[in-house]
């Protein structure tokens, strides 16, 4: 799976939880939870969505690594690659 495909899937999941988000406006570098208004329940639902979409396990201890969109794409790419 290419990075671009992962990115598209990551964004699709985000938009399922936060339908008002315009994918074109998302920056890859800005803190994700600042760009998208996500409370702790939303965030959990986003993680569950990524887990289901990509088949990767995301331990709670790794949440801190998922700071930006770029970081999420990198993280999921590595987790998938490591399987």
């Amino acid at each position, binding site marked *: 799976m290419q990075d671009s495909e992962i990115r598209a899937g990551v964004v699709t999941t985000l938009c399922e939880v936060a*339908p*008002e988000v315009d994918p074109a406006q998302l920056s890859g570098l800005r803190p994700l939870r600042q760009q998208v208004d996500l409370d*702790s*329940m939303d965030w*959990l*639902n986003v993680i569950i969505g990524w*887990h289901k979409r990509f088949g990767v396990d*995301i331990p*709670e*201890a790794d949440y801190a690594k998922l700071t930006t969109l770029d970081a999420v794409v990198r993280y999921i790419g590595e987790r998938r690659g490591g399987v």
Partner: protein
Amino acid sequence: MTDFVMPALGADMETGKVVQWLVRPGDRVRRGDVVAVVETHKGAIDVEIFLDGVIGDLAPLEVQLPVGAVLAHVQGAGEPMQEAPRSVTSSSASAPTAAVLATAAPSPPTAAPAARRNVSPAARRRAQELGVDIQALSGSGVEAAVTLADVEQAAASPGAPPAAPALRRGFEPAQMRAAIASAMARSKREIPHYYLNEPVPVRVALDWLRVRNAVLPVTERLLLAVLLIKAVALALRAAPQLNGHFVEGGLRPSAAVHVGVAISLRGGGLIAPALHDVQSKPLPQLMAELADLVTRARSGRLRSSEMNSPTITVTNLGDTGVESVFGVIYPPQVALVGFGRVGERAWADAGRIVPMPAVDASLAADHRASDGHVGAAFLRALAEQLQQPDTL
């Protein structure tokens, strides 16, 4: 014969409008069945019936009706069947009843009452989502019951029965604002609030969560919010004057704790539907129910029993980053508990300053129902509960 009436879905609701009936005259209903969709200022609500029996005449769609207006007659299971279809105008019930039902469109002069359709709740729900007319389907289930598969098949087939117009499920921001304004203005006008605040250390609770969540798949992980809500319910044992409703000049305490959870809606607005019987449910069940409640609140699929039953409200505004929150009580409730941001603080402990994760727990309570002494006992009990996550 019992009346099924327009429920009060919150302190601010005076009228509602049935926008969809999910049953037909002659259908058998059971306690807890969703029978109608009622539009309120806070969006469309699935209204449950708390009667067993056979449904009779239905109030008309798209007409504003006051709370308490009769929406349908229900014939109890033990009651003798009536010989002829009940005429709406011959009703011997109270005048408003007749007035409301008399506005219904005249029912078609069918000789026999509509055959009772056996429809599974899941099928009914799905049919509603897909706009499938359940009455037009032939059921494949036990006793010709219409099943989920029947509904989905009907929706997928090209010759599907004509779909009902899609139901608007969202809310109008202006109406939502008006509903909040009305309830909160009433609260500030009528309720003499008092406020207390207490920083609560949550290291033990966070450690307990971390260990527990580390071995669980993401779908079974718990949020701190669930521990906070359960701790509130258990702490209310020390302060029953904070749990219930202020009605007819006095406090009516509630044995059960139905926690209204303040949920902010995307696009503005706020709704605080109930998690039921929180005091007696295990954490994983509460977590699943909370996730479901938030999802349905945002998609406009709340049920009437969730709208009119909270006995206390909890708001978790700290999730957005503020240190503390002092709430406005939702009448006729008598208390609101607020949690601020969870973060590390300099904490004095046994003569040393240590970093400690903590959260501000606040209480806004109705001085007509309790005093600060009771409120303080509650916050103390809450803090103690959170030091013993195993007991939650």
